[in-house]
C-alpha cells in the first residue's frame, strides 16, 4: 500500500479488494492465495523497546493479518501486534487554495517473541570511494580533449579569429 506521510509512493497503486466474500456460520475459513498487501519496515521516530519493530501497513490490514503475514511469509515469531492509524495532513493548500490531502496510513508495532531484538540498520553507510584518483584523471583527459578541439589553425600564428582574414 502507499506510503503515508510526505509523498505519494508508486509502490501502492494496486489495492486489496473492497469486499471479501460473505461469511456465514459453518463456512470454511477464507484463504487468500496471493496477498495484495505490501508492508514496509520503518525506522521509529521515537525510541522503542529493543524487541519492537515498526511497520507501515495498508489501511485494510488488521493485526491478525499482519501476524499471519510475518509468521508465514517471513517466518518471524510474533508475540504481540498493536496498530494505530496515522492521519495524513489535510492542511496544506495548493495555488488554488484547495486543500491537499496526504494519504493516511496504518502503523503497526510488532513485538518479537523468544526474546529476539531488532535495531534498524544504517542503510546508507559512507563508503570510502576508491575512485578519487580516477575521477581526477578523467577530468584531466576531458580538459585535454577540449583544448585540442578549440586549437586554431597553426598558420595564423596565435592571431584571434575575430580579425578579418
Amino acid at each position: 500500500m502507499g506510503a503515508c506521510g510526505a509523498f505519494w509512493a508508486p509502490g501502492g497503486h494496486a489495492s486489496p479488494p473492497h469486499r471479501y466474500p460473505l461469511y456465514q456460520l459453518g463456512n470454511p475459513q477464507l484463504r487468500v492465495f496471493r496477498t495484495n498487501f505490501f508492508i514496509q519496515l520503518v525506522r521509529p521516530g521515537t525510541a522503542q523497546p529493543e524487541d519492537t519493530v515498526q511497520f507501515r501497513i495498508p489501511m485494510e490490514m488488521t493485526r491478525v493479518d499482519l501476524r499471519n503475514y510475518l509468521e508465514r511469509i517471513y517466518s518471524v515469531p510474533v508475540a504481540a501486534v498493536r496498530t494505530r492509524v496515522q492521519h495524513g495532513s489535510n492542511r496544506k493548500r495548493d495555488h488554488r487554495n484547495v486543500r491537499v490531502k496526504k494519504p493516511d496510513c496504518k502503523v503497526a508495532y510488532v513485538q518479537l517473541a523468544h526474546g529476539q531484538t531488532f535495531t534498524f540498520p544504517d542503510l546508507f553507510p559512507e563508503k570510502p570511494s576508491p575512485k578519487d584518483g580516477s575521477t581526477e584523471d578523467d577530468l584531466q583527459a576531458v580538459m585535454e580533449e577540449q583544448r585540442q578541439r578549440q586549437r586554431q589553425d597553426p598558420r595564423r600564428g596565435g592571431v584571434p579569429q575575430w580579425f578579418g582574414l
Partner: protein
Amino acid sequence: MAAARLAVLCRKVSAAVQTSRSFMSPQVPAGTRFSLILSPKSIPSVTSLHQCRILHTTLSRKGLEEFFDDPKNWGEEKVKSGAAWTCQQLRNKSNEDLHKLWYVLLKERNMLLTLEQEAKRQILPMPSPERLEKVIESMDALDKVVQEREDALRLLQTGQEKPRPGAWRKDIFGRIIWHKFKQWPIPWYLNKRYNRKRFFAMPYVEHFDRLKREKHARIQIRKRNLEKKKAKLLQEKFPHLSEAQKSSLVQDV
C-alpha cells in the same frame, strides 16, 4: 512454513529478475526439484540432490533481514538489476511456479519500499529506483496472467464470462447501467436497503434522456463531418497519394 522457506530459497537464488528463470528452467522437471523442499520431512533422493547441485541451499534464518537488501549493496549508488517479467514469459510457467514467484516478488517489493522510505527519511537518493517499477510491472503481469487462466477455466466449466454476477438495468436517471450484484445473507424482497434502490425511471426523466441522446448524436455527427472534411482536404492537397489511385495502380500492374 514450507512455502515461506521455499520463497526465501527462491529469493536467495535470484531476486525478482529474469535470472530467476534459470531456477525454473524447463530442462529439469518441476516435480523433482520442488519435492525436495515442499515436504521437509521426506528424505531427498539421490537423483534430486544431483539435479539440485546448481542450487545453494543456505536459508536465512532471521526473517527481518529479508526486508533489507544484501549488506554489500548498502551505501551503493546503483544496484544492477535485470528486466521485468513479461506476460508471455509468465504464461509459460505453471501455476505453482507463478505462486512462488508472486511471493518472491512480494518480498522484493517490500524490501524496495522499505529502502525507499528510509531514503526519504535520510534525505538521500534511493539507489536504482527503477527496480521498484520493474517489480510492480512484473506483479501486474503475473496478476493479468492468473486472471486470464481463471477466466478461461470459468468459461470452460460454467460458461460465465464475468466472475461477479450482474445485470443490465435502468437506473433512476434513465441510464442503462451494468448493476453488479452484492452478496447478502437474506433474499432481495426482505432487504430494506436494496428495496430503496429504484431500477426504473419516472416519466419526467424522458425529456432529459432525449436531451442526452440528442447531445450524443450531435457529437457523433460532428466527428464524422470533421473526418470527411479532413479526407477532402488531403485529397485536394495530395491527389497522387489517394487510395483510389493506389488501387487503380495495383489493378494496372
